[in-house]
C-alpha cells in the first residue's frame, strides 16, 4: 500500500472515530457497513465529510463498490490522482 493511501486511511479513521456513537477499533480491513453499524445514509453523510477533507467528489456509484476502510482510501487516492 502506498504512503498516500496509508495517510488517507489514518485521516479516515481519525474522522470516523469522531462520528461513531460508540468507540470501535477501526483498521484497514474494517467493513464500513457491517462492522460500524452505519446505515447507508450515514455512510453517505460520512463520505461527504471526507470529500471536504480531501477536496474530491466521490460519486455514489463508487461508494456502492466500497466495502472496507482500505477500499475507501484507495478510491479517494484514485480520484485525487485524476484531479
Amino acid at each position, binding site marked *: 500500500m502506498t504512503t498516500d493511501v496509508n495517510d488517507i486511511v489514518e485521516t479516515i479513521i481519525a474522522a470516523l472515530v469522531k462520528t461513531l456513537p460508540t468507540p470501535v477499533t477501526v483498521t484497514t480491513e474494517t467493513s464500513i457497513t457491517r462492522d460500524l453499524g452505519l*446505515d447507508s445514509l450515514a455512510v*453517505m453523510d460520512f463520505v*461527504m465529510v471526507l*470529500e471536504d477533507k480531501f477536496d474530491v*467528489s*466521490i*460519486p*455514489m*456509484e463508487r461508494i456502492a463498490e466500497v466495502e472496507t476502510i482500505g477500499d475507501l482510501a484507495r478510491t479517494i487516492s484514485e480520484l485525487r490522482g485524476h484531479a
Partner: protein
Amino acid sequence: MTILAKYTKLREHYHRIAGAGRDPFTVKFDAMLSPTEGMLNGRRTILLGTNNYLGLTFDQSCIDKGVDALKSFGTGTTGSRIANGSYDGHAALERELATFYGRESCMVFTTGYQANLGIISTLVGKDDLLFLDSDSHASIYDAAKMTPAQVIRFRHNDPEDLNKRLRRVADHPGNKLVVVEGIYSMLGDVAPLKEFAQVKRENGVYLLVDEAHSMGVLGETGRGLAQEVGVEDDVDFIVGTFSKSLGAVGGFCVSDLPDFDVMRVACRPYMFTASLPPSVIATCLRSLERLQEEPGLRTKLMANSKRLYDGLRNLGFQVGPDVNPIVAVSLPSIELAITFWNRLLEEGLYLNLALPPATPNSQSLLRTSVSAAHTTKQIDTAIDLFAKVARQLGVQPALVQTAAE
C-alpha cells in the same frame, strides 16, 4: 434460510414498531367521511396526514367528471402511452399543465414516483453528472441508481456546498443536472431556490425542481416555489404530482427545452407502464381548474398551517424551520414517537409516523399535513390532543427538544 433471509433485521425492526400498538404501516380506513375525516377501527378520526392540501378528493365537480369519464371510456386504458394507452384526456391534461406552467411541453406519468424516476434517469447519460440534495425523496435516489451518470450528493439546502462540488468538476465536459425539491416532505422545509438558481446560472448547469409538495401550495397562482421566489426562468424542468394538491394519483414534468418530446420514446418508466385510467385524468383536469379558480383554498391552507405550526410550537414541541402545510414534530426517541403516535390514534387523530432511515438526521417524527378543508376547530382539536397525550405520557415538550435542526 430463504431468499428473504437478508431482510431478517428489517423484519425484526418492523415487528418491534408494529408490536408497540397498531401497525403504522398497515393503517386501514374503513370509510372516508370527508377529505379530513375517516372511520378508523370504528372511530371517527381527524385525518391530519394525507397530503390532501386543497381537500379536493371529495369535490363534487371533480367526482362528476370522473364518473362521466368512467362511463364513457371504461375502467382503464389497459396499455402504455406509446402503445395503446393515449386518449384525448391524457393529451388534454398535458396541454392544460403546460399552459398552467407557461411551458412548451408536458409529459404525464402514471405516478409521481415514476415522473422523477423516468425524467431524471433519462436526462442524464453516462457522460453526464447528476447532483442531488442529500435529503432527496426516494424517487430521486432511485433515479440516481438507474442512471449510468456519475451521481454527487450535496449538503441539504446548501447552495454554497453545491457550488463547491460543481467547481470541483468544472472541467468535466458532460452535462450537469441539479435536482432539488420545493418543499421537503419530511420536515416541510423549503429550498433556498433563489440561491440555487444563482449557482445554476454561474455554473451553466441544468436545474430540475420537484414541486410535489409545493404545487397548489406556494406561488401567486399555485405553480410552486419557483413562482413564489420568482426564478421560474432558471428552472429547466419542473416535476410534480397529482396525488397531493390535485387529490388523485399520477405525475408530470413540464419544460421549455426544445425537442423535449423525444423523452416519450427514451424514458422507460414512461414507455413501459400502463397509462392513467381516464377517470383519474378527468378528475385531475377538473382539480387543476379548481386550483386556479379558487386561490382562496391556498389562503385557507396557509392559515390552517400557521395555526397548527404556532399551536404546536407554543406547546414547546420542536417543529420544522418553515411554516408550511407539512408540520413535523421531532421527538427524542423512536420509542416515544411510536407510543405518542398510538395514543393520538386512540384519541381520534391520524398522522404519519416517520422514522429513521426515512428521516433527515435520523429524527423520529410525528408528521402532519394540513388541508384547506380542515376546519379551525379540527386544527385546535389536534393541538389539544398533542397537549393531552404529552401530559398523559409525562412528556414536557419544552424539555424533550432534541438538537436536530
